[in-house]
């Protein structure tokens, strides 16, 4: 069996942090994605501009750079804002919060495109039918549009989640105690880099496989209204 020199528990703890980070960023990203897609499809020009600016910038800048900007820049920005309100204490944002912000923003930018495509794929008749039934716009969105958007968008969102899962490793660069960081610590103590990085790689691989299974199940569930026979 593998001899992890007692670092096995540490790595598992790291995996817990990685999963938490991925799920929190997913929630933030999904919300941003839906907002972004709605903004891009809205008739209000400034909203379109903001959404286009957001997706262009985020998709053109490396994820690592986004993480670094938010981790090192957020303190300055937050203190400037707090200063306006007369608060002069030192504010620091932790690696976890910075990671969720950075990865959520990244996920949201890509999800915007996925949701936009899905929203456009809903036939016009569905909107008309809902209006004809006298549904309130909000009700129409949650009852009729969103469930169908979900089905169309799921494969794309699933892929984005796999990318997000791997991007969580970047947050270890600013000191988050995730799988990668724990592996680094283990390496500096045991001088067995190949072993620990390979174990870390397989942990990510396991998380990827689990996510793929879950996405596959969700896809099946989301399209159960369509399967015949």
């Amino acid at each position, binding site marked *: 069996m593998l001899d992890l020199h007692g670092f096995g528990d540490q790595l598992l703890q790291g995996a817990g942090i990685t999963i938490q980070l991925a799920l929190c960023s997913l929630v933030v990203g999904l919300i941003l994605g839906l907002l972004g897609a709605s903004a891009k499809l809205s008739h209000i020009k400034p909203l379109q501009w903001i959404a286009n600016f957001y997706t262009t910038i985020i998709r053109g800048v*490396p994820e690592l750079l986004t993480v670094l900007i938010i981790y090192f820049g957020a303190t300055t920005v937050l203190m400037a804002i707090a200063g306006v309100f007369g608060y002069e204490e030192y504010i620091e944002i932790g690696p976890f919060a910075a990671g969720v912000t950075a990865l959520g923003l990244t996920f949201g930018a890509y999800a915007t495109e996925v949701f936009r495509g899905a929203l456009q794929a809903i036939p016009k008749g569905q909107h008309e039918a809902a209006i004809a039934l006298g549904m309130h716009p909000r009700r129409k969105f949650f009852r009729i549009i969103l469930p169908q958007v979900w089905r169309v968008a799921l494969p794309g969102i699933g892929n984005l989640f*796999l990318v997000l899962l*791997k991007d969580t490793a970047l947050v270890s660069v600013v000191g988050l105690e995730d799988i990668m960081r724990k592996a680094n610590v283990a390496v500096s103590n045991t001088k067995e880099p*190949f072993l620990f990085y390979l174990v870390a790689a397989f942990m990510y691989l396991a998380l990827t496989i689990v996510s793929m299974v879950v996405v596959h199940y969700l896809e099946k569930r989301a399209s159960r209204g369509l399967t015949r026979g």
Partner: protein
Amino acid sequence: MELDFSVVIEYFPRLLTGTWMTIKLVLLSIVLGAIVALPIALARISKNWFISGVPFAFIFFFRGTPLLVQIFLVYYGASQFEAVRESFLWPMLREPFWCAIIAFTLNTSAYTAEIFRGAIQAIPEGEVEACKVMGMTKMQMYHRILLPRAFGIVLPAYGNEIILMLKASALASTITLLDLTGMARTIIARTYTPIEIFLAAGAIYLVISIFVIYIFRLIEKRQNRYLGTLSIKVPDKG
């Protein structure tokens, strides 16, 4: 909050040096990655399990694990073995530059192989049959029809892959390479102006990706020109 963008002007030449390193990293690994990817894609298509199994595992590993782990595996991991340290490869594996190139090449070749596979499989069967009916040899068929076709199909996805590679190259800074991100981090360590310098670096990345998108749009237009203008519309069947 006061932003002082004069540091950006002062350190701009150094940022450009970093940019050049980034471009070198991306170009080398993209070219090497494409060369490695082609045989992997062809083997992956094979119906024989012995031939398609290994590429499948290769692709699955490199697409399923973070690039950061892969870089660390090559840069720190390889040195764990005495045999590696004494081999002729050591002068290369000691250099962070070549470690980054190796990791990036393997990583991008896994993604590129899947893109190539998709393109080759996307060519309609009828075109292959048409070539045979015309009496073309296999060489002629690949040279005149299939490869140019696959090239046209592959372009949009391949352009995306290059931009992803450009962004992934920022990870080279984690193994002490002074690429654009690495250079930005060293400048910041001296000037304590993270927002200004990082924003400048981000802007340079943005300019490079817009340039890549533009180039690919041009090639795509040229490559797919036989598809004609939109004025010729094929009526729908039925």
